[in-house]
């Protein structure tokens, strides 16, 4: 009787255990197939851009906390982050440059306004993040644009720091009159973006910060207002500076900021410099210079100071951390964000902090470049706004080029606003921003995504087979030119098209190579070798590891053939039409741009095809929508 009961009990226990294991396996399998993260429920999930060192910083700072990093090294980081946030797959802690819309913030992010760490932040900074009294994102370090001036020169000549734009113009004229060839203002001439930024900065200081200006910006974005209205003051102010002969374009042409500083400012050939980029490098030069320099804010005609500040990154927490069962994760996340809100944390996360302003209260900023720190503190109540960029991508380059040309020629800027309107209207007519390409029936795993990319290339029909490598990061080795991320259930819009694409340049065409069956077999068995060199964040696709500090192999996913593999060894390969592939036979292979090593390139003789991977993907999605997960080749 007892023996029978024991047997029954053991059988019941075994049954329960088996059921539990199966359920667990099934769940794990399900999680593994769709989530970017490993699925450890206790781990803090963080999505990071592959080039950053946040992973090393956080794991070293918090050795007792389990982390689950997903490192993305594709293109279009902003669209990627926006998509992942929308799908609540951005992880638990977010450290990125995305400024989330109010609606998305309320839906996906945790309100931090109740946390004491908010008290660490400078109110004027935090106010910019206030959404109906809630704080969903915290600003990281701030990059401030200002005017650098030669203090010694000013003192020598008795020039006063201009307190308004008009005074700046007057000073420029004064410099021209009183000196022998000193350039009043220098500005980096290597890119048209600086000229666009100069015009928009003046526009912001004079008009765009007003309620009317804010209203104009909304209408302009919708194509309902003219650039002539919103940027009128900026163009006027630029014209006045051109007319005052503030710039010596020919002397600056082609010079980036650091070079410009060394060549013109430090040689006392220029009195002032609009410092738009490379501020940290310039700051280092300033520290080593024998000249004494000062910085001053941009001012509008009335003299109100304006600081163009760009927050280099924002910090936020996922709303899912507040769900029941996540108490430990929430506590860990709060520890991390508390540290990220300290000067130590900001310093660690920010790539270069010498000119970065910490958004903390005065007593929290021990690392900032003093000139910039003083500028910030003296102008806490001035007008602040980020540099204009988002929303103006369609006109930025042409406008910048046009202004640059006018500066070069000391010409007129009158026609430029009209040109901007034309470009913008064309852009809006194209409607490319929010066009829906197609639809995905369900979430893809990352492997299914890479597989699909290979299939999209194959379906273009140019080659016998197509290969796409797995664009992931293994340890310190990053394969940038493989397939990234994953597709999500639902519509896919134009701007998200490039998120999963191999490579960094969505316009570069794919290539076709001719490789033997044996060479193809080697690629399948070995994968693509990526090597890392000291000081570099991106991997190189080389067959040789000489001088490399790390290297690894990344699997190819294929389309157009069937492969029988066992223990990582190819047993047989057969084209889709049933033709057995021979080692000695040559076959055409489509690759995504740069998705091969130099060795393969040498033997394969790549020929550009007439489409980039983006087009292949678009074509496939439009044709097969709604797209369903594909069978993995490996």
């Amino acid at each position, binding site marked *: 009787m007892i023996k029978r009961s024991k047997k029954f009990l053991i059988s019941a226990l075994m049954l329960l255990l088996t059921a539990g294991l199966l359920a667990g396996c099934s769940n794990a399998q399900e999680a593994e197939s769709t989530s970017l993260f490993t699925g450890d429920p206790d781990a803090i999930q963080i999505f990071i851009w592959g080039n950053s060192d946040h992973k090393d910083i956080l794991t070293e700072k918090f050795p007792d906390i389990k982390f689950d990093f997903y490192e993305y090294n594709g293109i279009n980081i902003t669209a990627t982050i926006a998509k992942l946030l929308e799908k609540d797959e951005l992880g638990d802690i977010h450290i990125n440059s995305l400024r989330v819309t109010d609606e998305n913030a309320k839906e996906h992010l945790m*309100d*931090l*306004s*109740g*946390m*004491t760490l*908010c*008290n660490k*932040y400078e*109110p*004027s900074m*935090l*106010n*910019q993040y*206030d959404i*109906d*009294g*809630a*704080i969903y994102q915290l600003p990281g370090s701030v990059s401030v644009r200002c005017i650098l001036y030669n203090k010694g020169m000013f003192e020598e000549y008795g020039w006063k720091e201009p307190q308004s734009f008009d005074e700046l113009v007057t000073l420029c004229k004064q410099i021209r009159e009183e000196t022998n060839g000193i350039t009043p203002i220098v500005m980096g001439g290597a890119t048209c973006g600086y000229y666009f930024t100069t015009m928009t900065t003046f526009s912001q200081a004079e008009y765009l*910060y*007003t*309620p009317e200006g*804010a209203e104009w910006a909304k209408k302009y974005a919708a194509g309902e207002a003219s650039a002539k209205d919103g940027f009128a003051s900026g163009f006027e102010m630029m014209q006045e500076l051109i007319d005052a002969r503030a710039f010596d374009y020919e002397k600056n042409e082609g010079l980036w900021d650091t070079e410009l500083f060394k060549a013109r400012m430090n040689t006392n050939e220029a009195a002032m410099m609009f410092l738009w980029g490379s501020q940290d490098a310039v700051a280092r030069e300033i520290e080593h210079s024998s000249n004494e320099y000062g910085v001053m804010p941009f001012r*509008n005609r*009335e*003299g*109100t100071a304006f600081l163009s500040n760009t927050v280099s990154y924002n910090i936020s927490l996922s709303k899912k951390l507040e769900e029941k069962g996540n108490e430990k994760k929430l506590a860990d996340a709060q520890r991390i964000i508390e540290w990220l809100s300290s000067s130590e944390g900001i310093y660690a996360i920010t790539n270069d902090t010498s000119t970065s302003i910490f958004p903390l209260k005065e007593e929290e900023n021990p690392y900032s470049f003093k000139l910039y720190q003083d500028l910030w503190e003296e102008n806490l*109540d*001035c*007008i*602040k*706004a980020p540099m204009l960029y988002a929303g103006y991508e369609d006109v930025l380059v042409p406008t910048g080029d046009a202004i640059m040309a006018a500066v070069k020629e000391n010409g007129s800027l009158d026609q430029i606003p009209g040109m901007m309107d034309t470009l913008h209207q064309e852009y809006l007519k194209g409607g490319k921003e929010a066009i829906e390409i197609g639809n995905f029936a369900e979430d893809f795993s990352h492997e299914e995504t890479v597989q699909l990319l290979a299939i999209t290339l194959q379906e273009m029909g140019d080659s016998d087979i197509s290969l796409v490598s797995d664009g992931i990061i293994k340890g310190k080795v990053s394969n940038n030119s493989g397939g990234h991320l994953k597709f999500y259930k639902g519509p896919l819009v134009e701007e998200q098209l490039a998120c999963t694409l191999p490579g960094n340049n969505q316009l570069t065409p794919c290539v076709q190579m001719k490789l033997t069956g044996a060479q193809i077999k080697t690629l399948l068995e070995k994968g693509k070798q990526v090597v890392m060199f000291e000081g570099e964040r991106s991997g190189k696709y080389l067959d040789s590891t000489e001088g490399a500090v790390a290297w690894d192999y990344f699997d190819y996913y294929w389309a157009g053939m069937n492969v029988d593999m066992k223990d990582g060894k190819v047993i047989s390969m057969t084209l889709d039409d049933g033709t057995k592939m021979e080692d000695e036979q040559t076959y055409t292979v489509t690759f995504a741009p740069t998705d091969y090593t130099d060795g393969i390139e040498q033997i394969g003789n790549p020929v550009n095809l007439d489409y980039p991977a983006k087009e292949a993907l678009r074509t496939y999605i439009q044709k097969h929508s709604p797209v369903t997960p594909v069978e993995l080749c490996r």
Partner: protein
Amino acid sequence: MDAQNKNPNKLRLIRSAFVLCITLIAFVMVFITQTVVDQGMRNHQLQMVEMVASRITENMNHYFQGQWDNIQYVRNTLTQRSFTEEDEILNCLAEEETALKTSYNELLLLLIDDQGFYYSANGGKIALWRGTNTAFASSELDREKSVTINSLAELSSESKEYLCFTQKLEAPITAADGSCFTHMVLATDKSIFDIDLSLASFGTITDVFIMNSLGKTINAQELNTDLAKTYNLLKTLEKAEFFIGNTYEEVKTSMTLHTSATSMIEFDNREYYISFQSMGIEDWYAVFLIDQYDMHSSVTQIMYDMSLGLAVGFILMGIVLAGFLLYNTRIYLAEERKNKEQLRLAMEAAKQASQAKSEFLSRMSHDIRTPLNGIIGMTDMAEAKADDKPALMDCLKKIHGASRHLLTLVNELLDIARIESGKISVNETQIDLYESMAVVHDIIESRALSRNQTYQTDFSGISHPLVITDDNLLTQILLNLLGNSVKYTQEGGNIKFTVFEEAADAQSAMYHFIIEDNGIGMKPEFLEHIYERFSQETISARSSYEGTGLGMAIVKEFVDLLDGVITIESEVNVGTKFEVIFTFPFLLETQVAVSDEAHFSGAKQSYHILLAEDNDINREIAQFMLTENGMTCVTVNDGQQLVEVFSQSAPNQFDAIVTDIRMPVLDGLDAAKIIRALNRDDAETIPIIAITANAYEDDKDLSLNAGINAHLTKPLHEEQLLKILHQLCGIGKETT
């Protein structure tokens, strides 16, 4: 013994449990008291906070209204005038500003033009008017009234914030030069918000700050409480516990309704009083935050001291009560033990008495049966030897001896019964000691002679023979003692009875009655128990000395009744000396000298007696006693016959009536009453003597009340009968 050991342990357990209970009760009561007081105090403090906060806010609102009134006043002043140029307007503004300024209140008047630029009275055009958000120009200008906190950085290099009341002018203030001002601003010191709640009762950890209805802090300042140092107080309070006053939800609702709320909360292990007072401007709230710990510290200290005092008091009271109960418990237990011991002793005594009684009854059964057996046996023998006169006389003699012995047994038993029932009382009468001694002498002398003992008496020491005492008791005492001497002295031994008087005072004397013999004596161990009932030496063995064992007990009882003292000296095989000492009052009226050799004996008298006795044997015995002494008698069988015979007799035919009491038809008492009531001369005078087995005092009283002159108890003693007849018939009809 085990029961005795258990009691101390049980006592300790009870004591410990009691103290523990009292301590627990003390703590519970203190806790309850503290909780109740604490709750009441908190509610009271909450009300106080609400009251203070609302008052302060009310004052602030008055201040705000005052600023709007000022703006209204200045606006009215400016709109009533016409201006040609901007400077005139600004000069006028400067005048009004000067008028409004006070020594303690910095104030600025500003105007905003139709382009959104603001002007100061003394500085002219300053800059674009910006509101709270420094990034953009103010959108508040669209509203009729707005209040903002501005730094007015363009106006002054000082780092200072102003409370700006901005009012849209119904009609712009214009000048002929085209100047047009659409808004007026009164900027005042923000220090109105710097409220110090550091009152003694609130402690020092307090904060007052301004927040909007979304929970965001409006004015930043030095904050003392950790709770206040958050960006959004309402968000922070989601984690707080609201336990007195408004709940969190009610607070949030009040924000939408622009009403006030006050609560006591716990946050991060600290308690706070927090009051949200709706201000009269914007959607702002004045928040009053008081750290409860500091607020209550002094009061809490008092409360804790009081609680401690209460607790100590309760504990002390408990200890005192415990001690009192312990003391009472000990006494109770001691009493218990004592009672138990007494009970045990009583049970022991009862057991012993029962055992003694059992032994006595066993003895009595034997002692009574023995003479009865002798009487019956001798009677049978006498019948058998009726013709043998010597044998017959021997039998009769033995029957007589056995009968007397049996009589002694019965008498002593009756005496003990009378003693135990309390029916023996001292009947003091005047007696003549000589006469009493003579009676005793006669009885004892004959006993002594029968044992060939020498019996001597010495009464020469009596100076006052007439004394007042109970003759019966005295006689019984002496008879018992002398009887014991006779019994416990071997044949041929010597017995001496001496009585002498020792002067005590003028009216009484101490009379010593000494009985000495050279008998078997008594052991000292027995002497210790000699007065105990049923005690006889060597009782375990049947001795040849017959007796009840009650004699000395009776002697002692009677000696005590007469307030006497008895002492005994005895030595085994040497002899015994009894000495009884009484203090009697004596009389001096008559003294009768009586020789030692004198003895009383009844002289034969020729009385004619009427005898009533229903028992044939007793009637025959009585008749024999009378006729043997020369009397004649008529006998009847019951009281009825007695009455008939007497009533039919001639007056004084009879000299006396001797009657039994218990008789059929009519008892002796009723017969006596009837006789005394007869209408004849001798009815009242004839002596009536009762002979009865009723031996108690009550029986005597009944007899006397019935008119009976003398009461003799059976068995009838011939000497007593003759003496009474002699007294009543020979010396008149006196009662005895």
